[in-house]
């Protein structure tokens, strides 16, 4: 570490030490050594002074004061780091082990999905948009399909709505399982990861049964769902949904009765409800503060008003509440699935509007009209009337809004997602300032960001 001394000059250049946190992050991230920031600032000024046009040169032996009052360590956590749940980069400034500032830098998995959507006909957008938030793909697809249905003014058959609800809630549990496993791993409870992924795999088996795919199933279509559930699916799902609450009890036993876990979670990273609302934070993070805002209740869609379920809320909004709210949501999701299985209405699973949905296969052999519809839908796609809509739904991470603008052609003019991960992430620095480094990792885990959704 080189200590550079300031020369005794009559007219000192701008050498008043600034607050290191006031420096722009692009300058702060240049720190690749362990020097304190004050020293780096001094060194940069020194270098500038050497280049003064008046030819004044500096002797490094000159006796001056050295600023040692602030020793901060700037550290890049990520984009490649085991705890950032994807390629998130956190520019953190540490004082010892305490986080003084944390700035999330994103964009490492930007794939241009929104722009690509404009190049595809409406029904080809679905598989693309499912890959945004790759843990809650059913929700992405539903948000988009509901927007297009609204533009088309298309009624979705009731059975399709209930099938959607079943799969959405399964996907919610799936998402929470991934969250719980990876979060516990971040806290050092390694076994939890495998327990959660075992449950997740059971859900993926069910997805595979109903749609043929484990992830990115493309099950939800414009106007309904891709196919009816196969024979035996309901029984298998019922068996799974019966044992799931017991499994969650086991997880809660392992974590909630562990003093280390409680000490790591309670009273960490709490942010007030007002501040979260200012930042636009939704989902479990907001509900952990006691605000029961859930779009399934607040603005029911897809027959959610026909189910009996509760919205779990927390009290103070710390990490423990966030954890508990998500865990309780799993129980509620199980209840919804059971009710949906019990009362699943008979009927078509996709709209019979031939301008929107493909005709059944057998009709193609007998009906000329069906063949024409099939040909038009496959080659050109759905023509959607002009207009723009915004449809919000409740994803596992909060309000997932889909904005679609149509110019009357068969391709959307603009598709935009209001990703809850993206909005929620901006509350991170409010949560982690002046906590320990390990708490920041725990808080980030409880934030549950999915980088595929953030960058899109």
């Amino acid at each position, binding site marked *: 570490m080189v200590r550079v001394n300031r020369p005794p000059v009559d007219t000192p250049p701008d050498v008043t030490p600034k607050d290191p946190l006031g420096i722009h992050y692009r300058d702060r991230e240049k720190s*690749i*050594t*362990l020097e304190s920031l004050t020293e780096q600032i001094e060194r940069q000024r020194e270098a500038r002074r050497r280049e003064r046009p008046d030819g004044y040169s500096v002797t490094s032996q000159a006796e001056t004061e050295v600023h040692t009052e602030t020793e901060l*360590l700037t*550290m890049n956590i990520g984009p490649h*780091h*085991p*705890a950032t749940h994807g390629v998130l980069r956190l520019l953190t400034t*540490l004082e010892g*082990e305490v986080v003084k500032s944390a700035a999330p830098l994103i964009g490492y998995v930007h794939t241009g999905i929104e722009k690509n959507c404009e190049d595809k006909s409406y029904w080809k957008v679905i598989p693309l948009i499912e890959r945004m938030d790759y843990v809650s793909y059913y929700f992405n697809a539903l948000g988009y399909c509901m927007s297009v249905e609204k533009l088309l003014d298309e009624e979705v058959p009731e059975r399709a709505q209930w099938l959607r609800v079943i799969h959405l809630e399964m996907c919610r549990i799936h998402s929470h399982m991934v969250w719980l496993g990876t979060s*516990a*791993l*971040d*806290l*050092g*409870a*390694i*076994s939890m*990861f*495998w*327990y959660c992924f*075992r449950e997740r795999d059971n859900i993926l088996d069910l997805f595979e049964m109903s749609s043929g795919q484990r992830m990115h199933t493309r099950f939800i279509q414009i106007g309904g769902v891709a196919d009816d559930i196969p024979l035996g699916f309901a029984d298998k799902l019922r068996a799974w949904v019966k044992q799931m609450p017991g499994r969650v009890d086991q997880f809660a036993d*392992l*974590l909630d009765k*562990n003093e*280390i*876990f409680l*000490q*790591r979670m309670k009273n960490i990273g709490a942010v007030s409800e007002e501040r979260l609302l200012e930042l636009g934070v939704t989902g479990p993070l907001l509900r952990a503060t006691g605000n029961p805002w859930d779009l399934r209740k607040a603005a029911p869609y897809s027959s959610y008003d026909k189910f009996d379920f509760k919205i779990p809320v927390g009290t103070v909004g710390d990490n423990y509440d966030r954890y508990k709210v998500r865990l309780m949501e799993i129980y509620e999701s199980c209840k919804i699935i059971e009710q949906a299985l019990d009362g699943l209405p008979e009927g078509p699973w996709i709209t019979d509007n031939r301008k929107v949905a493909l005709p059944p296969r057998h009709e193609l052999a007998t009906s000329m009209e069906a063949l024409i519809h099939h040909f038009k839908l496959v080659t050109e796609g759905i023509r959607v009337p002009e207009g723009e809509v915004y449809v919000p739904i409740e994803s596992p991470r909060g309000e997932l809004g889909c904005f679609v603008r149509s110019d009357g052609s068969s391709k959307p003019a603009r598709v935009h997602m209001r990703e809850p991960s993206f909005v929620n992430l901006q509350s991170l620095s409010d949560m982690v300032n002046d906590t*320990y*480094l*390990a*708490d920041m*990792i725990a808080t980030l885990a409880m934030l549950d960001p999915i980088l595929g959704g953030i960058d899109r």
Partner: protein
Amino acid sequence: MSHSVALQLATVGFEVSVWAQVIVSFLIFFVVFNMIPMVLLVERKVLGRFQGRYGPNRVGPFGMFQPLVDIAKLASKEDFIPRNASKMIFIIAPVISLFTAIATIAILPFGNTVEDGLFGANYTLYGIDVSIGVLYAFAFGAIAFYGLMLGGWASGSKYSFLGAMRSAAQLISYELAAGLSLVGVIMMSGTLSMTEIVNKQDGTWFIIPQFVGFLVFLVAAFAETNRAPFDLVEADAELVAGYQTEYGGIRFAAFMLAEYMNMIVLSGIGVTMFLGGWHGPGPDWLGPIWVLVKIFILLLFFMWIRATLPRLRYDQLMSFGWKILIPLATINLMVTAVLVVYA
């Protein structure tokens, strides 16, 4: 006589045969060193079972050769030194860690002195019986942290640096607690010699009168070996791999070997001080086997805890060490002192 001069430190009542003692020393090193791949494999197998999976089962029968191929892989990797590392210290650090870990094996007693044993030789079933006993282990344990600290500091990486800082803090807090927890045993047996302590446990093992001491020692041992839930030094979620972030290849292997060696050695000290060393049912020649079995039981406990508990936070680790363990060990020490004097 001339050939017993080298073994002045050994307080045995007879003249040992140097050739036999050399063979025994090599044998002890061989056995303990070869326990490491076994422990590595067993840990991965046991962890796998805890987590509902199989663990390694591809290389050889039951995945038995997995540690061998792991080490072969690490040995064949590029010898990489980061650009802004202090090269000399970066190279020396794993050597320090490994050296101190191996040096401590010398005082682990696997059995008593054997007079007129195999081939009519006199020998002792331990390396040396130093008069400072367990202090020897703690001295080397303290030096071992230089390996971690220098390694972390010399890497020139911030993760390593933070890991090294944590290891320094952990050393100060938990060496004290571990030391204090053993003083009770030392007072009860009235000697520092490891073999004498084991001999004193002929009737009751010290785990019964010194149960609190055993608990404190066990917790401190977790911290000393950087094992979960005290694995902050290499907390993968926060510090990637802590002090060993920049290490790769055979240097990384050296750190890993040192870590597992330390686990074995600390389990060995626990066995010696609390669990009756070589005492156990059966004939006398079973003694070394009993020591190994007890060490393995403690190691399994290490693995069980790793599969179950989350990690503590840095400040929680500190306050746990200073506010709970050290007072507990001190109270245990004082109660033992009173009992030893008046009972």
